[in-house]
């Protein structure tokens, strides 16, 4: 479904991604894990068109994404939940969700999808007229995911959905991620919480200093000694 081929991204003189190759098949949950500053977020931002690759290709269903703007990539069915949630703080929860459906014009379908999001996250319904900035971290994460779902993505990019959340909320969020995947959305999950991510995913890539270090089945990686020592806390 999505394929990154020899991707190189620079921030000025800094070489942030080095020859990154990554493949996601339809229906999978693929996770990209690694330390702070390894290039996880950069990978996602390049896929969604906010950063531009210097060399290399991004193929989405065989189609090159390089020349498209971020807004066009959303229309093609790739939705990105950014790191730190980035909800629109002085818009209401409802307006935030509406922004998620920005590219769509099918009003009756949007209404249906809104109801789906509210049934997935009942707490958002309770707070729909509240400013998004007043929500708790977990609620903001739910809002950010709900907002992304409203563009009807075929591929959902999640950047550290567990960041800063209490363990119980993290569990809740991961359960929902699995549900979303079961309903037919392919997922690329970026995480620092390698344990949770590997439990949830089918396949995994480990990125180190901008390079893909290890790749394989999530289960295999969980039992790999090197991975255990470096990423799973022994």
């Amino acid at each position, binding site marked *: 479904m999505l394929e990154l081929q020899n991707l190189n991204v620079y921030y000025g003189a800094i070489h942030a991604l080095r020859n990154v190759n990554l493949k996601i098949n339809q229906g999978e949950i693929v996770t990209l894990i690694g330390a702070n500053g390894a290039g996880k977020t950069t990978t996602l931002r390049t896929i969604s068109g906010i950063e531009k690759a210097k060399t290399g290709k991004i193929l989405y269903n065989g189609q090159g994404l390089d020349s498209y703007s971020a807004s066009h990539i959303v229309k093609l069915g790739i939705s990105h939940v950014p790191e730190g949630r*980035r909800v629109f703080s002085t818009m209401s929860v409802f*307006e935030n969700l*509406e*922004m998620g459906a920005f590219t769509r014009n099918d009003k009756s379908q949007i209404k249906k999808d809104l109801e789906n999001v509210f049934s997935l996250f009942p707490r958002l319904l309770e707070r729909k007229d509240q400013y998004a900035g007043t929500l708790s971290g977990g609620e903001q994460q739910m809002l950010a995911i709900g907002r992304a779902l409203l563009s009807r993505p075929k591929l959902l990019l999640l950047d550290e959905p567990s960041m800063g959340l209490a363990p119980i909320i993290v569990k809740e969020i991961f359960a929902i991620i699995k549900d979303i995947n079961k309903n037919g959305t392919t997922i690329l999950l970026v995480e620092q919480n390698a344990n949770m991510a590997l439990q949830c995913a089918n396949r995994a890539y480990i990125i180190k200093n901008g390079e893909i270090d290890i790749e394989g089945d999530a289960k295999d990686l969980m039992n790999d000694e090197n991975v255990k020592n470096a990423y799973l806390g022994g």
Partner: protein
Amino acid sequence: MHLGKLFLNASLNFDWGDKMEQLIQQFVNGVSLGSIYALIALGYTMVYGIIKLINFAHGDIYMIGAYIGFALTTFLHVGFFPALIISMLLCALLGVLIEKVAYKPVRNSTRIAALITAISVSLFLEYGMMYFVKAETRTFPELLPNKQISILNTNAVLDIKNLYIIFVTISLMLILQYIIYKTKVGKSMRAVSLDRDAAQLMGIDMNKTISYTFAIGSALAGAAGVLVGTYYNSINPLMGVVPGLKAFVAAVIGGIGIIPGAVLGGFFLGMTETMVSAFGGSLYKDAVAFAVLILVLLAKPNGLLGRNIKEKV
């Protein structure tokens, strides 16, 4: 004795009425001046909200709006409202063009580069206009009925032009309010000003949103230009400098990037200046305007309506 008392009463009444009349009169003037500042300040604040650029050429778009109004009414004998609307449309186009030609190439450069570009555009417009229309002051034709109404049967008179200014300003603000809160364009503008990256991830087209912002802001400045032309009857190529600066002050007083702040700041500044003039300090009114800015910034560095929403991590 009796007669003396009556006389005293009458004079007291008269005195009270006189002050009241003056106050009403100055209030009306303050609202008119405030309207002009608010219209210009809105463009400043909207552009700042979207691309964090202080568009110093904004006051000059107001000047060009006045000249467009002048040309339409003097040479083509167009009426007030058509002139207002055509001038707004042309200023909107000019604003979009300026953004595309001058600001877009430096959009990802340092902020100081963008600021220097804005100052250059400002000087280019001022002295470019001076080349084409000459430096002399032009006289606007009388467009509006030169009628004065007395307020509440007192001696305070209301120039009907004041009513036009206030009516046009309030209508434009209502339309703006509608655009910003009810339309897709407005919502995309709010989203971009809150979080540029997140807005792009929603599928919002940055270039389009920036163009719309410049168009709307410049149209409001164009309207202010025509209003001032008809009110004061005289225009010149440097007329935008001081009101542009004052409107910038108004936007900062209200909290730059915040739309209601620009309106509040505009009226606040207009009222302060008029009242200072009314009570004998007309020479100091500009100094007072900037003193007010300093005081507001000392007390509330984000402006009167500025707020700090804490981010949750």
